[in-house]
């Protein structure tokens, strides 16, 4: 269990070292070394600790007390930091949110919280191990990529200033906090790490201090996540007052027992709802999705980190963790399960539709992240083991594939000086290797037999089996739209445009090794995932969902998975063996005029040379981005209001009840 503490402390130490190093020559080897150590540690921890049982890390009462006090001090300092930043940039809402939640938590900690005995502070089960590996491997890979990328970034953006020491400090601190979130059983501790990720993302998004847009977007992210944090604190306080505990595991036990016996303690939906709300903000679900889209102003490694392995994954982690307590029981149940399912489903559908009209590659990726997180959230909300199986697979596949795509777009941007998909015309001629990586990434996002499609299939199956069959409508329309926007991008990638100069030799080696490695990982995981499912996900599900047999935990049968894998191998073999081989005579294109021979110009009327230009189809009239966001935001706002009002009603009822009993409140 020392490894567990090391996972949090080692990145923290590296982060502090990073602050002190100014020279790239010294920094790069340290970053690479640290990344390797973190990756190795996480894998070592995974291999040695896999098992169906939840493993507990014991802390002596004294040590826990010291750590707890230190956290309170740091939290107070962070709140002051937020207030300072808020005053400096005149963003008073951030100040208010910080000034409400931190004192509330500290007050709780010093009064009621002080008497609550916590049995388990830290733990690990198979799900947190999966998360640890994602963070440890993909998160640190992105740090390595950054060593190459940030050189160019600093060169291209002199106005941003060279704040690289601070940048790397934040990256490693982020990893440390993420490890903390996924292994904390004590919710107060989890909240501590939660707030640190909020602040890290705030500073990372605002990296380019000179840009007004960067400052505004960073504050939007901060405010939305602080709002989530506020609900997190309220959840902790309610749980502490009514159940005399702040442990996640006790909450889940009470909730699943309540569900099984039909006698749910009334405060449990309130706590679950508050925590799920916090999860929704962090997972950038509508109406909070705008912070993640705004996060694009940051350097690419930041986006890759926020989208794939950290931040948003913390949000879905918490919601998936809460899944056994979610689900919709009756037709008129507007509790947390209802909220999570609908917000996830609506977000999946409308974020996909908003992605349709985007030509900026990073925006497409951002909307696709929001949409996929929506699907994960909706699956978690269904609250059955097969649905959670689909959700966890989605988390894994999405982390690998999305980090690959972000890093590829980042590299393309630095070399073709544009992140517009239209400018990636003929990328296959100019940067063949990068285009090949991107093709694998894009296929991985939507195409059978690759990973994400399998998860979508599983989601469809799981939802059809659940009591929420209407959710199918969101999935079928959402996934059709997904097909459209990925496919037209893929079309751009495979199009072979004549006479393009190869410019890929300028790419840094760090970038090649990471994008290449991730491409390999996408394919490798697609081929081997049934094995991981049997050894990690299924044992977690049989533990988390009482009474689920191993056979019923997976949404898809093994035979179908095997067939899919055979198909992956078939596609890869066909393309690797036969691509570009033909013994046919190659002839020029038909152009409704005489082709001038380069396939890009033809001789039009009056002997004039007419160049051709091909543009993608964005259906902006059919799916205007603003309107899609508006509809999604309104619907989700209504759902959230409905549920929160319902939960508030429960709280008021309970307070009234306590008063009539002569309670302490």
């Amino acid at each position: 269990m020392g490894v567990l503490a090391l996972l949090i402390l080692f990145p923290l130490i590296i982060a502090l070292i990073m602050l002190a190093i100014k020279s790239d020559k010294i920094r790069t080897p340290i970053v690479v070394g640290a990344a390797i150590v973190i990756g190795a540690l996480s894998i070592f921890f995974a291999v040695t600790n896999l098992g169906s049982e939840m493993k507990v890390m014991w802390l002596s009462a004294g040590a826990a007390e010291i750590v707890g006090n230190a956290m309170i001090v740091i939290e107070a300092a962070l709140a002051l930091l937020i207030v300072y930043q808020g005053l400096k940039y005149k963003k008073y809402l951030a100040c208010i949110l910080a000034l409400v939640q931190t004192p509330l938590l500290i007050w709780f900690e010093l009064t009621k919280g002080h008497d609550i005995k916590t049995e388990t502070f830290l733990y690990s089960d198979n799900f947190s191990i999966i998360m640890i590996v994602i963070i440890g491997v993909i998160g640190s890979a992105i740090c390595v990529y950054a060593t190459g990328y940030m050189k160019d970034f600093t060169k291209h953006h002199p106005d941003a200033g060279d704040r690289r020491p601070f940048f790397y400090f934040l990256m490693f601190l982020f990893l440390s906090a993420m490890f903390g979130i996924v292994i904390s059983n004590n919710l107060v501790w989890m909240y501590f790490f939660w707030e640190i990720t909020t602040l890290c993302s705030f500073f990372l998004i605002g990296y380019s201090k000179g840009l007004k847009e960067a400052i505004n977007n960073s504050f939007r992210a901060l405010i939305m996540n602080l709002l989530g944090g506020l609900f997190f604190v309220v959840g902790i306080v309610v749980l502490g007052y009514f159940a005399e505990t702040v442990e996640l595991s006790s909450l889940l036990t009470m909730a699943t027992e309540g569900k099984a016996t039909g006698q749910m303690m009334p405060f449990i939906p309130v706590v679950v709802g508050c925590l799920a709300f916090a999860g929704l903000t962090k997972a950038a679900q509508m109406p909070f999705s705008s912070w993640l889209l705004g996060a694009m102003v940051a350097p690419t490694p930041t986006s890759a980190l926020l989208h794939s392995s950290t931040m948003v994954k913390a949000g879905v982690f918490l919601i998936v963790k809460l899944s056994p307590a979610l689900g919709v029981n009756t037709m008129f149940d507007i509790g947390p399960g209802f909220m999570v399912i609908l917000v996830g489903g609506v977000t999946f559908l409308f974020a996909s539709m908003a992605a349709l009209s985007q030509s900026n590659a990073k925006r497409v990726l951002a909307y696709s992240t929001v949409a996929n997180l929506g699907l994960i959230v909706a699956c978690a909300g269904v609250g059955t083991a097969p649905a959670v199986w689909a959700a966890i697979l989605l988390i894994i596949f999405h982390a690998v594939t999305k980090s690959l795509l972000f890093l590829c777009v980042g590299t393309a941007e630095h070399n073709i000086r544009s992140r517009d998909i239209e400018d990636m015309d003929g990328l296959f001629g100019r940067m063949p290797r990068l285009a090949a990586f991107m093709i694998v990434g894009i296929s991985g996002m939507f195409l059978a037999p690759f990973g994400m499609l399998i998860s979508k299939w599983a989601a469809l199956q799981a939802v059809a089996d659940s009591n929420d069959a209407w959710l199918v409508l969101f999935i079928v329309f959402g996934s059709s739209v997904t097909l459209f926007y990925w496919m037209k991008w893929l079309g751009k990638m495979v199009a072979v445009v004549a006479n393009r100069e190869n410019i890929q030799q300028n790419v840094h080696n760090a970038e090649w090794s990471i994008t290449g490695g991730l491409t390999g990982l996408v394919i490798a995981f697609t081929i081997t995932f049934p094995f991981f499912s049997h050894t990690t996900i299924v044992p977690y599900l049989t533990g988390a969902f009482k009474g689920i047999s191993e056979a019923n935990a997976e949404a898809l049968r093994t035979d179908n998975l095997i067939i899919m894998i055979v198909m992956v191998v078939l596609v890869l073999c066909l393309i690797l063996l036969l691509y570009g081989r033909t013994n046919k005579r190659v002839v020029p294109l038909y152009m409704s005029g005489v082709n001038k021979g380069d396939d890009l110009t033809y001789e039009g009327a009056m002997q004039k040379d007419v160049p051709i230009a091909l543009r993608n189809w964005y259906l902006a009239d059919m799916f205007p981005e603003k309107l899609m966001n508006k509809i999604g935001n309104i619907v989700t706002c209504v759902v959230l209001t409905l549920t929160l009002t319902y939960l508030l009603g429960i709280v008021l009822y309970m307070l009234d009840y306590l008063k009539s009993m002569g309670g302490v409140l």
Partner: protein
Amino acid sequence: MINFFGTEISFMQILTGVLYLVFAPVIGCLIAGIDRKITARMQGRFGPPILQPYYDMRKLFAKEAITVRGSQELFVVCCLIFMIITGLFFFAGGNLLMVIFTLTMASVFLIVAGFSSNSPFSQIGAERELLLMMTYEPMVLLMAVGLYLVNGSFDVSEIVMSDPISIIYLAGMFIGYMYVLTMKFRKSPFDLSMSHHAHQELVKGLTTEFSGGTMAVLEIVHWYENVLLLGFVFLFFSNGTVLMVAIGVVACLAMYFLEIIIDNGYARMKWQFAFKSGWIMTIIFGGVNLIVLYYLKLFGLIGA
């Protein structure tokens, strides 16, 4: 019986799969021939011999082998391979969702082949094909979920043999599927991406840059595909009894005849209409039917 990773596959299933492999192109070719004959008669022409599609294919294979891009042929061959695999899964009684996803895969290869040439006409065709995919995909997936809710399994072998006559519960889905089937058959008014009616096509749509053997392979793909699509229609009727199997086959033929009439009765519509009407039909007929099924399931009237 063969045990394939925990699932029993009977010899009957393997047999039907092999039969599909061998006879689907024959049946598809005949259907195409009859289609052309009936169409000709509707237009007051005598029409070609029934075997004309076969003669066309033979002639295409005999043409000089030319191409605009080295990669194009590979994508079309992949399309054929995945179309055959799709049909095999279906006729061997595999999982319906897997069938649909593999079918999507085949269509994706076709679109990729269109894009890869970087020809203006081909690309417009490819993007229109993509739009049609987005239009019909929700309905096809909903149909699968509907069949699942009624029959309790996604496996085609179970759906065909299980007791309920699905169309009774899935009348709405059937209408919705009929509507999008016009797109899948590439018939007017929704033959946006590639058409048999030269007068309403942009050069030759998606297939502008396909020639000779590649074009012939594409024809074979369509033969396989059409038989598979009619197979979906059959699922709505069969419950394993001889009577319903016969009715199912008749329904398939009637459906195709209806498509021929529609094809000849309409000119190509704009893509906006194709897309909007496709989704509206899906929501009205598919969505409402799904909600009805949800309540039937809630009250224990369907499903295990």
